[in-house]
């Protein structure tokens, strides 16, 4: 991993966690990815992204209560940290900046 740059999937996962609010755990994130972004990814890829984002300090996590589902196992619930939000915002602003740089013409042509 190069510094704290976000990968494409990572950015998506981060956005999903942000949008899921209090219920952001791996399975929910995967479902949301499929539903809103039409991205089908394996659960292990989601795990990979979530834990890496946590290592980078963009996510924080805590255990949620155990349920009778999932064999009574605990869930790890993720939350976007302020650093995570800042990165998301930065990424969005950068993209907007890039968009605004695109000449109107090519915009029409597309």
């Amino acid at each position, binding site marked *: 991993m190069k510094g704290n740059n976000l990968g494409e999937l990572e950015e998506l996962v981060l956005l999903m966690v942000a949008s899921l609010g209090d219920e952001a755990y791996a399975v929910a994130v995967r479902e949301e990815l499929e539903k809103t972004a039409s991205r089908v990814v394996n659960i*292990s890829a989601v*795990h990979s992204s979530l834990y890496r984002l946590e290592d980078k300090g963009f996510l924080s996590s805590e255990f949620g209560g155990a349920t009778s589902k999932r064999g009574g196992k605990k869930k790890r619930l993720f939350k976007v940290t302020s650093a995570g939000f800042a990165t998301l915002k930065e990424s969005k602003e950068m993209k907007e900046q890039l968009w605004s740089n695109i000449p109107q013409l090519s915009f029409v042509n597309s």
Partner: protein
Amino acid sequence: MIPAGQNHVNRPPALGTFLLRKIYSAELFEEIHGDLLELYEERLETKGKWIASLHYLKDAVLSARNYDLRRKRHYTTQNNSGAMIRNYLKITLRTISKNKVYTALNIMGLALGMAACIFIMQYVAYERSYDKFNVNFKNLYRIQYNFYREGELQFECAAAVPRVGPFMKEKMPEVVDFARAYPLSMVVSYNNINFREDRIHIADPAFLKIFTFPLIKGDVETCLTEPNTVVISETAAKKYFGDEDPIGKMIRADGQYSMAVTAVAKDVPNNSHIKFDFLISYQTLNNQTDNQSETAWGWYDFNSYVLLRDGTDPVAFNKKFADVLYEERHEEEEKYNIRQEFLLQPITDIHLSSNLLQESEPDEAGDGEAVFFLTIIAAFILVIAWINYINLSTARSVERAKEVGVRKVMGAFKAQLIGQFITESLVMNLLSFVLGLVIVTLGINQFNALTDASLDLSFLLSASFWGVAMLVVFIGSFLSGLYPAFVLSSYQPSTVLKGKMTGKKGGILLRKTLVIFQFASSVCLIAGTLIVYQQLSFVRNLDLGFDMTETLVVKGPGVFAADSLYGSTMQTFRNELLQMPEITALASGTNVPGDEIFWANGIKRAEEPNEARKTIYIAGVDYDYFPAYDIRFVAGRNYDRTFGTDTGSLILNEAGAKFLGFASAEEAINQKLSWGRGNKTIVGIVEDYNQMSAKTKPTPLLFPLVTGRSSFFTIKLDKNGVSDLSQLFDKVERTYTAYFPGNPFDYFFLDDFFNRQYNPEKKFSRVFTLFAGFAIVIACLGLFGLSSFNALQKTKEIGIRKAIGADVGHIVMLLSKEFVYLVLFANLIAWPATWFIMNNWLDNFAYRISISPMIFVIAGLLVLVIALLTVGYKTMSTAKSDPVKALRYE
């Protein structure tokens, strides 16, 4: 709940779970497994068991990509050691302030141990520092002189013959230089200042060069080359010359020899085996002796030193020199059937391990064995102190078990707990070290007074002291912290928190072993001390064969104008003194008991051939010597004034008669001996008495009649004691100075003088006692802590027993029983060990006590009583406490 059967059917493939378990660390496995199970359950409902299982397997296999999460997800890698150490210190301080009694016991014990250790190590370091101030100390040797007759070793002497030094330098290229020093005692005078000086040596010019005795004034190259010149020490310069410049001034020795001061040397350091205030040039002696002091092979009064080239092996040197010597001397030696041997003795070995005839400072001689014992005692004391620490910490582990449990539940790792307890131990050790230094600083004067040592606090400035001390403190903290740390950190939090902790069996065994070790050491030290005292009082009260009570000895006059007048002056002096009612006898002689005899000469029976001549030590006496000392005759008679012929008579001691081959004392009477010029007749044989201390048996002695100048006047005082001693001294001194003007009045009491030979032993026994005391106090501190803890542990049991009706005595018994067993067991170990060690020590004495079993019983009882008192204090208060309170405890 899902029914069991259904649950079984709906379980995902075990292989997948197995893989997951392998891939993820334990911390991550549960949550991730949960996620996969959730997906599995979902798919199970929508797509059926097969698809769900396949997906589950696929998810598990693909999870392999997250294998590296195993390492990264360890929550321990956060770097918070700074905070942790701060936390350790905080907890340590809290524990310290919470358990003031335990902490005080712990720190006191450790501090005492460390103080004792510092004292001993400084003392040992001082004893070992002898002669090392000499720049050349590694290559400086004294020549030891061994003398054999008919192949048998006759004596080993620290002083060699005058010829051997120069001879060695001529023949052996390894010798850089040599110096001889011939010790003397003379009365030194300048103007009207007279003192008897004992630290005089006649020395070669090289003496000041091979030793490091720097000069303040004068030239080291020339100051001892001319006859009748003298180098004096700074102290002597002040004593005789005050602020005057001593260089070039003339001093007189024994009233007859004038010598010019050519240099002033710095005072000889205390840790030198040879000490001087005056060094007279060797040439002075050569002029007096017709150069005998240059050529003689038989006159052994010369401390001879050689400086060898770097890297010379003394053993090889000795061997090589033996051959060279044989070449030179074998004809002469074979003629008399004798053999001389000269061996190199490193000067750094002299103070601690040399115990030869004619040592330079016999009363100051260190005892290598004692120093070795002390080092061991120091180590013992420190170990005992650390054992206390271990004991108290493990005993208290039950109390702290809850803390450990909570810490573990909160996520502390074993290594962190160990770190915490070692930090605690380090803090305690450091605090104790500081307190120990305070004890040393405050107690150093008392220590010096008690042990005649001359330690100062300069070691506090030396880097090596701090280096060693810190090393010891750190190693000690680590070792003493390690065991409690492991015990404490290995508790299972669940058992501890449920309150099931009752101390482990193994810990108790260890504690018992440690207590036994402590008390065994204490018994050893007490019994050892008792034996040393018993032996010392035994030798002091031993019938040495002469009477030394109420005996005043005055040193004879060094200065006397005309030898021809001595006899008559002496006669009137004697009469005047005997007029004093307090004085019962006056005798004179070349020696008094306790004064090492240096006068030796060849002697044989008149009928024997010249080759049979043997060397015998000689003490000149006058008519009154033997009666004054109450030395009994076994045969013959004393010298008698009324016999005009007694100058041709001789008296021997029994050992002397045997030495000369007489079958009995009676047989020796009237036999002729060849000694000096012409034959003399044996008129009397005296009983053997101890000329020197009871460390040695009486040796053969010859007592010729000497009526001329003698070294000592023996004055016997009234047996019933003298009411006003100082008045008597005044009278005697006035008489003495009137008859022998120009002589200082030097006197001593013979018993003090004689018993000073036991100074090394006395010193040793005092040091021994002191540290035995230290060891016992420390062991008691530990026992006190342990027993009060024990009582605390059994609070409930005691409460119940009391409620049922047990009385105080019963409970005290219950609580002390265990310790009594331990102390008894410690005795069993200590007794044989002490017997063995002390028996060895006693073998140093020619007259020794046999070790009585009572001593062991006394030492054992003493330790038992001390232990019981220690245990009893806390036990009593626990036993007396209100059972209701006890039962509410916890």
